């Protein structure tokens, strides 16, 4: 096992909710608990996936790692150094080490800039390179790296003159300009045509191998996550509820929420396309201002028993092989799941009828 390059310990981000004068006087404080104690450790060269529904806090986690947001509580270590509250020089160093690819390649580049301006910007900010010539050479090299060639043709273009895939390549090129060690990729392919997705992911993986990069891949798309990541963490309402090697988490998922997520994936396979699936979940995701007591998933869980809301929240426990799950009934679910797989019966539906 190599040294972890990025460690999050109980990472927390609470946003204050705007209050009326009356609430301020009464001393009421409400918080949006966007990220509510997330811990993980990523090794060098690993591709770590963060999946979950919209609003589960996965993008916020990404921004906390980028230090685009102030960390409320917990600690963040990069290459063994505590960067939780760094400022000045140390923050600059962090900015060079950790880069981000944004979800929307249409808005992540200034429309008035040419690709040259976009790629030059990080070099100008960090005063990398002796002169324009050296910087220019570096820009060309990176453009070749992300397969935007010939570079001369792209340097003078504005972002709107590129296709979605080309833009995301350019955005990736920008993150590579400063030789980072960690790249947070926030849904890098979700706004891109399906046909180019695989290409982009392939390029990212190739870069990772060549340059020894570490990715944090934030997505809601389980299928690309399975394809792209080594390890996966599933987030629900600001907490990781299941984590482990991607294959294990997806094929042998134990948390009811992960099961629901996987169940919801559309499979464009003949005979199944027009079939609306029974997703084993109920209700809507609650507001992050009002997190349910006990297990935060219990109101939507089809397996929930009184202990789930009467007792403290279950912790992530290792059930072997690096597979961790935060559910107090995971053993029963595994047993039933194994039975279900053999009998090919739908476990979720059976449980649902029994509960109601």
């Amino acid at each position, binding site marked *: 096992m190599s040294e972890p390059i990025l460690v999050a310990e109980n990472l927390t981000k609470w946003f204050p909710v705007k209050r009326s004068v009356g609430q301020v006087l009464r001393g009421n404080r409400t918080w949006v608990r966007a990220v509510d104690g997330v811990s993980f450790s990523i090794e060098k060269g690993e591709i770590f996936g963060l999946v979950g529904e919209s609003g589960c806090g996965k993008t916020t986690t990404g921004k906390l790692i980028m230090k685009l947001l102030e960390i409320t509580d917990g600690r963040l270590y990069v290459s063994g150094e505590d960067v939780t509250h760094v400022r000045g020089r140390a923050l600059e160093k962090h900015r060079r080490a950790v880069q981000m690819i944004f979800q929307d390649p249409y*808005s*992540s580049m*200034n429309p*008035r800039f040419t690709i040259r301006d976009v790629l030059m*910007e990080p070099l100008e900010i960090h005063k990398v390179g002796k002169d324009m010539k050296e910087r220019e050479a570096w820009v060309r090299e990176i453009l070749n790296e992300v397969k935007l060639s010939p570079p001369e043709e792209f340097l*003078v273009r*504005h972002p709107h003159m590129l296709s979605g895939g080309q833009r995301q390549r350019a955005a990736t090129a920008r993150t590579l300009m400063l030789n980072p060690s960690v790249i947070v990729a926030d849904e890098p392919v979700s706004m891109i045509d399906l046909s180019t997705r695989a290409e982009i992911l392939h390029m990212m993986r190739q870069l990772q191998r060549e340059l020894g990069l570490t990715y944090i891949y934030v997505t809601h798309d389980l299928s690309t996550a399975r394809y792209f990541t080594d390890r996966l963490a599933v987030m629900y309402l600001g907490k990781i509820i299941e984590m482990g090697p991607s294959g294990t988490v997806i094929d042998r998922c134990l948390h009811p929420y992960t099961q629901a997520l996987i169940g919801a994936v559309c499979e464009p396979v003949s005979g199944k396309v027009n079939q609306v699936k029974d997703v084993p979940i109920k209700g809507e995701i609650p507001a992050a201002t009002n997190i349910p007591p006990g297990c935060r998933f219990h109101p939507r869980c089809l397996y929930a028993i009184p202990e789930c809301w009467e007792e403290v929240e279950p912790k992530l426990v290792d059930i072997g092989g690096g597979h961790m799950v935060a559910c107090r009934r995971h053993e029963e679910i595994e047993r039933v799941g194994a039975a279900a797989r053999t009998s090919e019966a739908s476990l979720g539906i059976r449980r649902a009828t029994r509960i109601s």
Partner: protein
Amino acid sequence: MKGARFDQLRTFWAEFRRVKSGLVGLALLGVFILIVLLAPWLSPYSQADKRWRDMTYWIDSPRDARPLWVNWFTSRKYTETQTINAASSKETITGSGSSTMRIEEMEFPYQYKAGYPPNDIMIKLGVTGRSSYEVLIVRPDGKQMSYRGSTTIEGAQVVRLSVVETLASRVYAALAPSEDPAFAAQKDPTQIDPMSALFAKAQPGVFTNPVNVPGTYTVKVKLALIGPDAKLDTSQVLVMGGVSGILGTDDGKRDLWSGVVAGTKWALLLGLLTSLISVAVGVIYGVASGYFGGWIDALMNRIYEVFTSIPLLPILIVMSAVFKPSIWIMILVMCVFFWTGPVKTVRSIALQIKENAYIEAARGLGASHGRILFRHLVPQLLPFAFASMALSVPGAIVTESSLSLIGLGDATVVTWGQILRDAFGSGAVLKGVWWWVVPPGLAIAVMGMTFAFIGFAMDTILNPRLKTR
């Protein structure tokens, strides 16, 4: 990079050309700039700008003369201004040594044709040393009036004898016998118009209902130069006409065309400078306020509100009471108040732009706030800034004019507002001296219109909501 900017500029021009009012504004601006550049050639009085308030500079031009072109529209013509040199002169020398005396006799014939008599006749004698002189005005009918005077000091001096100012009583004395005795007895000699009487037929009613007589009016000057060193430098008779120059003259004899031309420079300068500074400050302030948000935004908004709620005029009145009114202080004070103009719009645009992912991306790259403000936000606001700059020029010019009008302007420069103030101060409106009031007023209006047209055209192009296509 340069090519792209140039392309943008070309597209902008292509769109601008389609807005007719914008082109009119641009053409007018061109005219104004030409006027400023060509001022030394356009203005007959080259020092009009510097010596506007120096009455000695204007002494040889007519008072209250109408513009020249007024004669094109009237059946009864006004006399044009002209300079008459001596038609004949005779010199006699008597005595010798220190008692030398030279007597110069000169005649200046003036052909008075018809129409309104001239506003004044001025006999101008440049003399060095001691002398005594006699001036005689001889009318075609033989009536004459004379004036005697002397120069007593050594050195060069210029004697100016104005019929209106110094010879009025002589004109009265010469013509009173012809007037109806009853009227002549009760009429105060200072109340008559000496010029119309001078050129009128000697008959009852010469003072009240003058009938002008065309003919040759001769000014005869007899000058005794006393001493061997005394000499005559110049001698001229100036007929101060009823019309003069492109825009006439005011009651201080100043050429108004020169004043309006000199004022163009100041109007452009103070308009452009004020709008440039105030819009630059306003845009940066608004962008910073929108970009930083939070308590900084709240604080900046309160400061903005304080500035918008202070009334400008009382402050300017106090300022000019405390400081010596100067155009530069006026520009400064206007900037202090006008920068608030674009703030709210710019702030709201900045709020919109800062939500774009590329701002966050720039932060992620480690860009400083200054870099984000000036590299990412401000360039996007430049088109708006130019439009609001053009639109705020008229405000500055009008404010300066209003301040000058109420007497708080910079009296050392010629601005249109200053000319207007002088006009109102001497009751030009009541006296019907329209050529003193209309040109500077019109100039202010046209200058305002110029920038309003340009600003509206830019607004139409840059504001997508106003696009009619």
